[in-house]
């Protein structure tokens, strides 16, 4: 089972078994390269840990534990976590500043404890099967046991074709569950208990209490410290540099914190509408980094897409994870294992266009007849020419607020979810019938926290982005999974818990001042990053989409997976509808955002089925090719860990 995860930890691997329990670990050695071997046992042998991630405040915690009488044999954060668990039990996670998915087997209590970091940077999946609990960082490891059923979860598919991700704890596979971000779990004498150890709360606005300079100053100090902690490593650390504000600011802070030679990495494209080289070059010149670019073409995307879906383990509606997969390959090939990135700023500090769109729609809805208010719609999506070319009447019609949306808890997101849901028309009749009664948006509504309705609309929109799209898509498919696919760890200073908590106290009127997104962050960045980068309009990271799969020279797998015969066999999509979609792309005109999402979603779903669910799939080949490391008896439930009740 652990050999399936070699890409996550190519440096060493080991297993530990005792009685009914077994843990296995594949290690990417970053802190205490020589001493941090895992699974790691407590000195008295009572507890053993397998830990994926980093605890950035481990040095401070170590000092505290030493003062309490704990003795350490290594310099690793893993040993600190083991001692902290011995001291505080499951509550230890409250003390952690880091990104983690870990398991502790407590032999004396015969109890397994699992935990996942607050926002879900690190993945963790589990499966209750034949009286045992198995868990792993990736689903493919759980399928090492051929008795674990491999069946597509159609409701999860409907979620993806609504929100872009399956609603946790669902995964794309019926028997497999995800431990949601910010949750812990115990398996105690065969009983499973799951609870949240963290929640995101927004503070009420208190006008006049603090001014914007005050907020910017505190944010700056927190970010500097967040970066300082994230530079703790016994291997060199680089940065991603997209040319946007967030990664530029993080790179600039790294520059301030360290005199070391600094390497940075970015993606570039042929297409001017996606390429940000100009801004990247400007930041590189200003900060003097040693920069490398991964140039990515539509052909590269199509060729690498199967590998990407192998790693994401879920369909995607955009190709955007693929260039990031190619970027992490460049990082790895350059001898780096760790990069700092700017992810998270848009979610916690209000950077996305969806926040701006909701603000304008709400402002307009309060006086629907106002022509002046609706003119603000022109400020949206300046990078999408098809939107900008619309007549005023149609722009108003596209963005108008439906009466039923005004009172919805999902005011900001309903237009987007309704648009994405249209893609379900490609489902086969059988799948559509199966999903007839399933309402993803109602299920999302049931998952909202108690205080949600008390927050203002801006915070509600931020919550949906931060707690759902972020872990479900950005952090996984564009983050951990495509980075770890090349054995690269991403570290995210904006997700330092102090930064996240502070950002949740900044009033929305300052996060987006009038229509200036991430206003407080822009104040922070004054004089630190080039002015053109600081003040540019937020351009979301995008890449060539559906055309990658229909252009001349597209890989053969596309035609095979989208052939009417294959579509009929797999039974998920309607062959005629998919055929018409392909014809539309081949004709090459009028391709919309939805068309692109549909084609990418269908190709990626078919790849998932092909690689994981069909007989003689890539998974089967993988299982046959890679023997397990020794030490696990065949009677044990094997995995990154497994425990039998």
């Amino acid at each position, binding site marked *: 089972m652990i050999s399936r995860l070699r890409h996550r930890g190519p440096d060493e691997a080991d297993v530990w078994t005792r009685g009914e329990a077994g843990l296995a670990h594949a290690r990417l050695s970053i802190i205490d390269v020589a001493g941090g071997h895992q699974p790691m046992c407590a000195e008295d042998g009572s507890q053993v840990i397998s830990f994926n991630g980093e605890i950035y405040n481990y040095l401070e915690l170590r000092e505290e534990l030493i003062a309490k009488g704990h003795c350490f044999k290594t310099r690793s954060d893993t040993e600190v976590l083991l001692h902290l668990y011995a001291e505080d039990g499951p509550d230890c996670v409250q003390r952690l500043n880091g990104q983690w998915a870990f398991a502790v087997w407590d032999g004396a209590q015969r109890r397994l404890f699992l935990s996942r970091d607050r926002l879900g940077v690190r993945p963790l999946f589990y499966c209750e099967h034949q009286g045992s609990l198995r868990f792993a960082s990736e689903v493919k490891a759980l399928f090492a046991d051929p008795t674990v059923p491999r069946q597509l979860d159609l409701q999860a598919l409907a979620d993806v074709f609504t929100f872009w991700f399956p609603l946790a704890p669902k995964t794309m596979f019926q028997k497999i569950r995800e431990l949601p971000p910010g949750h812990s779990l115990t398996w105690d004498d065969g009983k499973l208990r799951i609870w949240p150890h963290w929640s995101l709360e927004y503070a009420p606005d208190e006008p006049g209490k603090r001014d914007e300079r005050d907020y910017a100053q505190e944010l700056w100090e927190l970010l500097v410290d967040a970066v300082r902690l994230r530079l703790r490593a016994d291997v060199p650390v680089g940065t991603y540099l997209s040319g946007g504000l967030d990664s530029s600011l993080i790179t600039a802070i790294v520059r301030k914190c360290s005199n070391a030679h600094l390497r940075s990495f970015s993606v570039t494209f042929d297409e001017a509408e996606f390429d940000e080289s100009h801004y990247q070059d400007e930041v590189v010149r200003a900060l003097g980094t040693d920069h490398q670019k991964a140039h990515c073409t539509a052909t590269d995307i199509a060729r690498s897409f199967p590998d990407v879906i192998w790693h994401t383990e879920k369909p995607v509606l955009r190709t955007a994870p693929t260039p990031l997969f190619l970027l992490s390959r460049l990082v790895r090939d350059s001898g780096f294992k760790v990069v700092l990135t700017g992810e998270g700023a848009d979610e916690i500090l209000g950077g996305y266009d969806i926040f701006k769109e909701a603000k304008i729609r709400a402002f307009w809805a309060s006086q629907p007849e106002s022509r002046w208010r609706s003119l603000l719609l022109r400020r949206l999506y300046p990078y999408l020419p098809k939107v900008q070319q619309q007549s005023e009447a149609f722009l108003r019609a596209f963005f108008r607020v439906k009466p039923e949306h005004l009172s919805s808890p999902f005011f900001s997101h309903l237009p987007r979810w309704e*648009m994405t849901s249209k893609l379900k028309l490609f489902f086969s009749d059988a799948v559509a019938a199966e999903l007839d009664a399933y309402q993803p948006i109602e299920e999302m509504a049931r998952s909202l926290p108690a205080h949600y309705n008390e927050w203002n609309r801006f915070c509600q929109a931020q919550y949906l982005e931060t707690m759902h799209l972020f872990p479900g898509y950005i952090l996984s498919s564009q983050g951990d999974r495509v980075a770890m696919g090349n054995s690269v760890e991403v570290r995210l200073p904006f997700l330092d818990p102090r930064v996240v908590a502070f950002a949740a106290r900044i009033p929305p009127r300052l996060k987006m001042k009038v229509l200036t997104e991430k206003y407080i962050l822009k104040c922070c960045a004054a004089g630190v990053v080039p002015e053109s980068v600081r003040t540019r309009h937020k351009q979301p990271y995008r890449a060539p989409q559906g055309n990658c799969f229909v252009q001349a020279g597209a890989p053969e797998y596309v035609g095979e997976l989208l052939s009417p015969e294959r579509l009929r066999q797999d039974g998920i999509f309607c062959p005629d509808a998919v055929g018409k979609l392909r014809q539309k792309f081949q004709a090459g005109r009028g391709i919309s955002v939805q068309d692109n999402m549909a084609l990418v979603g269908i190709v990626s779903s078919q790849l998932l089925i092909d690689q994981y669910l069909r007989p003689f799939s890539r998974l089967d080949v993988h299982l046959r090719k890679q023997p397990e490391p020794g030490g696990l008896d065949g009677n044990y439930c094997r995995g990154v860990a497994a425990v039998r009740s």
Partner: protein
Amino acid sequence: METIAVELRQFVVDNYLFGRAGDLSYDSSFLESGIVNSTGMLELIAFVEQTYAIQVEDSELLPENLDTISKLAKFVRTKQRMAKSAN
């Protein structure tokens, strides 16, 4: 049903519904139902200009003219009549 409306319906079904017409009627609102998005609207206008040899002015880009198959067919007929009488 007259030819223009039938042709327009076929274009909408093929290009925006990918053959899955469902309950699309001649009076279904493109905007209400979300059938035609911003890119689709530009494409639809290009289609009627090319197919029916008419010119749609910016001032005519209104939901009143373009939001259903029936309205669009009526708009096309009016434009064709205007073009004929101008000649």
